[in-house]
């Protein structure tokens, strides 16, 4: 696809994402019933759950891209792995913040060491460290190898973290029964959140690729070396 064609596609994609978010908000405030026990604060759930699942998908993309890099040594995989991990951190931050707001509204506590909150925190820590490690290594090749190895191990750690936090006492209800309007609202929120996550991963991958390219030399000065995907 030509550059102009790509630009139009990107604009349409982001416009559609914004439109879907607007629709989801409209559904949330006009159609969705208020939950009887927790009240209006429960509405944060419709954002919280899709973002939590998107975080996990972003981590999985980073894991697959890490394996892709280790088996092929192509920088495209490394750029995708770094971009997905970056998006996972951003999304996981939103999960933590919405989770804390919800906990405050529902239980009167900003933080409790419940399994799900702990799981989100550990996931966030794992991928923040991934980004920190990448920022600390100057050599592009070493950064890609170390990043891929850490990305691989961090994702393998996720199910172990999940199993270990299940041993902790839980305040969350074991299962939530949603009425049909609530299920429809949840579906309406999944679409824009998935579009946002996918769009961010694609945009960050392109950005990483551009940062990896050497800058053009200006007026006889030598070009700056490539910075590489962070």
């Amino acid at each position, binding site marked *: 696809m030509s550059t102009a064609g790509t630009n139009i596609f990107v604009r349409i994609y982001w416009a559609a994402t914004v439109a879907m978010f607007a629709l989801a908000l409209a559904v949330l405030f006009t159609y969705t019933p208020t939950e009887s026990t927790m009240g209006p604060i429960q509405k944060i759930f419709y954002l919280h759950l899709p973002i939590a699942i998107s975080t996990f998908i972003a981590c999985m993309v980073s894991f697959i891209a890490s394996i892709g890099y*280790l088996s092929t040594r192509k920088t495209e995989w490394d750029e995708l792995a770094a971009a997905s991990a970056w998006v996972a951190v951003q999304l996981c931050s939103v999960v933590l913040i919405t989770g804390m707001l919800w906990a405050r509204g529902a239980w009167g506590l900003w933080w409790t060491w419940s399994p799900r909150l*702990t799981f989100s925190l*550990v996931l966030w*820590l*794992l991928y923040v*460290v991934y980004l*920190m*490690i990448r920022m*600390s*290594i100057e*050599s592009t090749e*070493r950064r890609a*190898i*170390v990043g891929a*190895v*850490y990305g*691989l*191990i*961090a994702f*393998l*750690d996720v199910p*172990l*973290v999940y*199993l*270990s*936090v299940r*041993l*902790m006492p839980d305040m969350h209800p074991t299962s939530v029964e949603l009425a049909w309007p609530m299920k429809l609202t949840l579906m309406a929120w999944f679409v824009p959140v998935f579009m946002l996550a996918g769009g961010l991963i694609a945009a960050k991958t392109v950005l990483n690729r551009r940062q990896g390219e050497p800058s053009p030399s200006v007026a006889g000065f030598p070009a700056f070396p490539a910075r590489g995907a962070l």
Partner: protein
Amino acid sequence: MTRAISQFSLLVRKDLRIESRSRQTIGLVTVLGVLVVSVLGLGLGAASNVAGFSATAVLWVAYLFSGVLCFEKTMAVERNDGVLAGLLMAPLDRGLIYLSKLASNLILMIAVAAVVTPVGILFFGFDLSAAPGTFVAVMALSIIGFASIGTLFSAVVSSTRLQGGLLAMMLFPIVLPLVITSTQLMLHTFRDGQPASGGAVGVIVAFDVIFMTVSWIVFEWVLEP
């Protein structure tokens, strides 16, 4: 196979001989572990509401800091006088280098734990009489997992010449499943009087098996003279 075992044994003996002659790591790491337990004992132990089984969490803090220092020091030895470059040029499987380094680190960590653990138990008044075998088995299995991943990351940090502190940053979030599982297991066993659940022990064993295998496979990619 016999050749691999003799090479493995040679590499482990080399590490232990260097340590026995220089005594650079074991003394330093043990004193650090005792210091951590003492500082936390002074800070927490004075409070009357700290139960004995909190010693597990305190011991983990000591193991984590001691372990990081131990792994850094044992890998730094390989950097001196181009030992690592020599090892990489030798007709050795690099996975074998990982396994021998892991064995050396494990021997050192068990020696450190043998000193630090009784100190922690003593300072916090942790009564182990209900299930001493469970405590020893859980902590030993956890240390194996910790050393497995610590050995790999110490090679990563060493080969990229990253600044100190990064090894701790890399290791701590990864080993959290071990910390959470072992502390929860101790609470269930010593506070609630329940037997150790197979599922919880399974998490620790799974951690050990997964990360030992993965580290053994990827070690050759991260190693660089």
